[in-house]
């Protein structure tokens, strides 16, 4: 009787394990590809363009909220502006009046100008506010601020405005790579949100909204109207300086509270 062939030892194969390992790898790569955000921008879908989720700020915290300041810290006049880079009126104010304010008031030491973000509900309001802060981080806020306002129409409805802001940033001397990385991150989301909270606490509803030495004023239509207003609030600042032009703009209502003192950044 022939002997039965010896049974081949059964292998406890690792194949199922390798299959599982491969599936884990493929699933991971699949999740990555599904959530990929390319360096050139994937349509802006993942750009942080919203406020941070923060608890309401206390009065002390509101007092510490920083704006972006220009001019002498001890200037007799402090002008606070709450603005949104995508607001058309802000762009108009920034391109027509602000250069004159800077030249005649800020650069002469009469006034300090402090910019606060107050993003409204435009498409890129929050993102553009963060972009301004990213420019400020490299010390070029005011240059970038003027350019982004002047070119507002070019990016206001863009699919990915960072692609437009990048070259503008480079134009004003910013490191474009660092700037774009900053805007594409969530940096300064908290700062912008706190600035917006400060504005709300002061009763700001639209933009641009101006406060002069704690008093809220109507947005002046001309520089002369603004100077007339400033002469009423801080006459000492204009001693020996002839008035810019006659104007009769009434004084605005008094602000509920003065915005926080800010330090130049």
């Amino acid at each position: 009787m022939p002997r039965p062939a010896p049974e081949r030892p059964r292998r406890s194969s690792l194949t199922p394990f390798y299959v599982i390992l491969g599936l884990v790898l493929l699933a991971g790569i699949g999740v990555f590809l599904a959530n990929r955000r390319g360096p050139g921008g994937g349509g802006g879908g993942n750009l942080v363009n919203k406020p941070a989720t923060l608890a309401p700020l206390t009065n002390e915290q509101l007092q510490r909220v920083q704006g972006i300041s220009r001019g002498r810290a001890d200037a007799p006049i402090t002008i606070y502006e709450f603005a949104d880079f995508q607001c058309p009126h802000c762009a108009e104010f920034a391109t027509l009046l602000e250069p004159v304010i800077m030249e005649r008031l800020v650069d002469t030491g009469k006034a300090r100008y402090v910019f606060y973000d107050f993003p409204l509900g435009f498409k890129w309001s929050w993102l553009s506010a963060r972009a301004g802060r990213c420019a400020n981080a490299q010390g070029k806020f005011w240059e970038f601020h003027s350019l982004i306002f002047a070119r507002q129409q070019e990016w206001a409805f863009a699919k990915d405005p960072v692609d437009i802001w990048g070259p503008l940033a480079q134009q004003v001397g910013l490191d474009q790579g660092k700037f774009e990385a900053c805007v594409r991150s969530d940096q300064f989301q908290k700062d912008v949100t706190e600035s917006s909270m400060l504005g709300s606490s002061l009763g700001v509803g639209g933009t641009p909204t101006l406060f002069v030495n704690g008093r809220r004023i109507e947005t002046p239509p001309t520089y002369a109207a603004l100077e007339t207003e400033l002469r009423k609030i801080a006459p000492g600042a204009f001693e020996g300086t002839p008035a810019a032009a006659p104007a009769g703009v009434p004084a605005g209502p008094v602000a509920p509270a003065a915005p926080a003192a800010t330090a130049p950044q």
Partner: protein
Amino acid sequence: MDEPGYTDAHPQAPPLARMAIAVLAVIGLLVSGYLSLYKLGVIGGLTCQVGSCEQVQASPWAVMLGVPVSLWGAGAYLTLLVVALLGLKRRYVDERWVALVLFGVSAAGVAFSGYLTYIEAFVIEMWCQWCVTSAVIITLIFLLSIPGLNRAR
């Protein structure tokens, strides 16, 4: 496969802990690879449902000796994966160095992840969900590597 497998003649089964280490190492490699691709500028942003991943990645603690921390992590996970897979082969299953490498690399990973988690919690006060995920993975690998020390010759 030429490699001798686990047979009835050699009934000792492949260690499940090493299989688990290999699977976790693949997940860790995916996580650290994702962070590395961001840090190296290959991808433009991080998906981050919890915390502030990009701010954490922008902090000075995200780079060690000029190399992104995530890239160090990817190297560690790759080492763990290769060694764990080798450690499943009959030829290496009881090798002492396999157990020691898995234990040593994961122990170093746990210590470094612990330090980074401390930095997230108390220094920059921001969290990165992927960093926390990696910390959990390396801790599990470390725990799974302990039984192998007894197994090794």
